[in-house]
């Protein structure tokens, strides 16, 4: 039987770059194909071609053995191709039903919307595929995992047979990822086919039937999951052997650099989002803050860096208290901050690379003399940093927005690390980055730690926390529920704490005697 979808020799070039180079892919009916590749490997372009957003320069697309020309997304939908985007295309003030019927509204008596019919169909779909969703819930009230289920229902409602999921796990908690995998399995059991795009090796191995690895616009390997291993995939993906394990010596902690006592912070809607948090970070150690996203980590970091108001409690850096200090004041006291949202906070996107590299120090000598910005010195410094931190950019004059995510992050790291710092606050420092960049940034953070910098690492990815931290704090509903040394860590225990189980009960449920081997793979 012909594969449900086959791509032959797809080639697409943009000025100056060959995004797809004679790509061959095929998806069998009822199977999951994982498309693995780093950012910029050409996954985006390929899927946009399949979804009719780009026209290929060369190549053919076959659906059920029949050659098709896909001119636009409606063509793709008509051919049974459905796409679930990484950033959901939902309208928050509408209900799940209303979102699903958007664009294909059924009409009753000529003018009335037939919502009931859609709701009924949603319930049918959700029972058939294990997609639990309340049709009448407003999107804004739904957790991220449920929003994703609405997106999948939207696609199924339009009778898609081939589902493309673009980095679907990037926004999910570990539990939600499990839920998604269950849904995917039930989809393929019902005869649907899935293309799963990701750069996370573990997920690929857990869910895919076959894996195609893309690098530099080419398919560098297609293998069955049973023949694949993390090391093999990583090597294919990056094109060289990758160190998946973060190498680090035991920490040699020094004095207290950051001390937080009973910190309370309110969020924008005046809810107490950080609730009496207390902890200390010592020089030369990494304190990891684990927790499901939205449990106050973001606001904790904002409060520490002066971006949010402190309601009560005390923060001191090197023994000196921080009282409603401005962000600049805090920066000048030797705090570096790798922000969670690099495009919103970390960079001025339209500005050239060189300006972004001096974004925190432009007003100090030698970059400013009197009222004059020293353009020459700024450019020289920037060129040095670009070299030193291996930022891939044609030159330092291009807008930083033209760089890939990994290189944008390197710009931030270069800027923050080039200042004399005592405390590094890294918030999701590898979010959305490829394996190569993750490896690089992790090793840089460990390097800083070894130089004696205190590091506060915040990340919802437990693997990252475990790989880098010397001590691990778990945050749940704004409270630090426990702090444990990393060498005695128990993943199951941490997972239970993150899910809100009290530390005593969690110990009973995951006793330390059954401690599993620490998985230091990211």
């Amino acid at each position, binding site marked *: 039987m012909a594969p449900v979808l086959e791509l032959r020799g797809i080639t697409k070039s943009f000025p100056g770059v060959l995004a797809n180079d004679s790509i061959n892919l095929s998806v069998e009916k009822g199977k999951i194909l994982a498309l693995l590749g780093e950012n910029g490997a050409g996954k985006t372009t390929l899927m946009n071609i399949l979804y009719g957003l780009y026209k290929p320069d060369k190549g053919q697309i076959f659906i059920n053995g029949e050659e098709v020309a896909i001119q636009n997304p409606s063509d793709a939908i008509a051919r049974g191709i459905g796409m679930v985007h990484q950033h959901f295309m939902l309208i928050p003030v509408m209900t799940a039903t209303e979102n699903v019927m958007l664009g294909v509204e059924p009409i009753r008596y000529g003018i009335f919307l037939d919502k009931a019919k859609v709701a009924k169909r949603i319930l049918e779909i959700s029972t058939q595929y294990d997609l639990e969703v309340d049709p009448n819930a407003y999107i804004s009230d739904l957790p991220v995992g449920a929003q994703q289920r609405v997106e999948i229902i939207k696609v199924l409602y339009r009778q898609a047979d081939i589902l493309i999921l673009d*980095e679907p796990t990037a926004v999910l908690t570990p539990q939600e990822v499990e839920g998604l995998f269950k849904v995917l399995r039930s989809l393929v059991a019902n005869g649907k086919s899935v293309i799963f795009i990701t750069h996370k090796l573990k997920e690929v191995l857990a869910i895919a039937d076959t894996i195609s690895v893309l690098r*530099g616009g080419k398919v560098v390997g297609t293998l069955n999951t049973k023949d694949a291993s993390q090391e093999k995939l990583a090597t294919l993906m990056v094109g060289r052997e990758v160190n998946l394990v973060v190498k680090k010596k035991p920490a040699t902690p020094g004095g207290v650099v950051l001390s937080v006592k009973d910190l309370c912070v309110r969020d924008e809607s005046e809810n107490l989002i950080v609730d009496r948090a207390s902890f200390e970070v010592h020089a030369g150690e990494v304190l990891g803050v684990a927790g499901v996203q939205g449990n106050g980590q973001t606001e904790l970091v904002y409060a520490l860096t002066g971006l949010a108001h402190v309601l009560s409690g005390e923060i001191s850096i090197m023994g000196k208290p921080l009282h409603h200090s401005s*962000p*600049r004041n805090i920066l*000048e006291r030797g705090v570096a901050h790798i922000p969670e949202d690099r495009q919103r906070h*970390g960079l001025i996107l339209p500005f050239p690379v060189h300006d972004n590299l001096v974004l925190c120090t432009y007003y100090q000598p030698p970059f400013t003399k009197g009222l004059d910005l020293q353009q020459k010195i700024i450019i020289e410094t920037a060129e040095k940093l670009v070299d030193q931190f291996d930022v*891939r950019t044609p030159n330092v*004059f291009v807008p930083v927005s033209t760089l*890939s995510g990994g290189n944008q992050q390197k710009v931030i790291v270069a800027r923050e690390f080039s200042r004399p710092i005592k405390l590094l606050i890294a918030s999701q420092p590898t979010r959305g980055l490829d394996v190569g960049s993750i490896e690089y940034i992790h090793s840089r953070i460990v390097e800083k730690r070894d130089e004696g910098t205190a590091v506060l690492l915040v990340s919802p990815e437990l693997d990252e926390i475990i790989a880098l931290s010397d001590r691990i704090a778990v945050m749940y509903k704004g409270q630090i529920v426990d702090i444990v040394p990393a060498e005695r860590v128990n993943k199951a225990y941490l997972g239970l704490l993150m899910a809100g189980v009290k530390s005593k009960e969690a110990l009973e449920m995951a006793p330390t005697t059954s401690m599993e081997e620490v998985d230091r793979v990211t």
Partner: protein
Amino acid sequence: MENVSPPKPAVSENKQGGNSKEKKRNGSKLFQTLLVPVLALLTGFIIGAIVIALSNDAVIASYRNIFRDPGAALAATWSAISVAYGSLFYGSFGSVTEIFHSIQTYYSTGDSKAFLLAIYPFTESLTTVTPYILAGLAVAVGFKCGLFNIGAEGQFGIGALCSAYVGYAMHAPWYIHLPLALLAGAAGGALWGAIPGLLKGLTGAHEVVTTIMMNYVSFRLSDWLLNGPMKASGFRPLTPVIDNSAMLPQFFPDPLRLNWGFIIALAIAFLVYWFLFKTPIGFEIRAVGANPDGARYAGMNIVKNFVLAMTISGALAGLAGAVQVLGVDHWVGQGFSSGYGFDSIAIALLGQSHPLGVVLAALLWGTLRSGATNMQLNAGVPIEIISIIQGLVIVFVAAPAVIRWIYRIRAISTQTTVLTRGWGK
């Protein structure tokens, strides 16, 4: 990492050839920046020509007989358009031959009258351009900080009133009086701009709303001042004429009104450029404008920059009013500003908020305005046609996709040249 794009050798090569690469980059960037405004202008004139032809009785009449005499119809169309644009051009720049002959006359007879008459249209154009440069810069500075200052009109009016007051109420030697009058104008505008800036910074009130409201306050305030405290004796609501010592000196004798205001405007444009692009304060303003969250993260004070940018913006608009009063009008009357503040929004847009662009856009705007009078006189084409052309140009500049569509130009693809981007962004 030999397989990750771009390859490392290419990077270092680029760095070595940094200088020439940079020049090339600047060259094509300049071309890209100018392409849309220039085509917008061209398109505006073409549509303007159609409107001129359609509103001309002779042309319409000739088209009734188009099948019998198509040549006459085309000739009538051509003559209507060429007479209109010809007199527009003459009104804006004068005639090159006249200027040339008048110079000859001056050298042979020593009589400068003909020369002054010949350059009159051009000097008038530059005189008209002057307030547009300053007011355009005002709006551009706001744009650079991410603020839409619609209040240039009100700031212009307040600036004019302040400098007029200093001009007639104080008496001092020119080297004190004139700078003081200019400063008063800038200060008045600065105050009028700072208030919306403060409101925005401290309370989050949107500057579009507050500047519009400040405009109304300034209109009514000036009505009251011109009918009361600042009214000169007589029936009409006017201020007294300012002292000679407060007037900006003219380059030529009357009726050529071109004065030092033009030079001041050019100098200020350069100063604004230097300030925005070469000083740390300007760097901050631009950073706040491009990404306030990022600027705050980097330690910049958003409130301070909002207030500063609005104050500078207001000061520039106020200075525009001052220069107009001290250089051209010498008194202030009701309805004085006649839309300078609003036109300046268009000029800042057309100039892409860059000081050099603003100067060029203001030159264009002012010369068109100035030439339009002559067009109305000589060709009988209503002055409003210029407003149509200007309006079209702005629409095209604001919606560059239209121009790209008309001329089949591809969008600037700076994004795809070197590095592709990952999913989702």
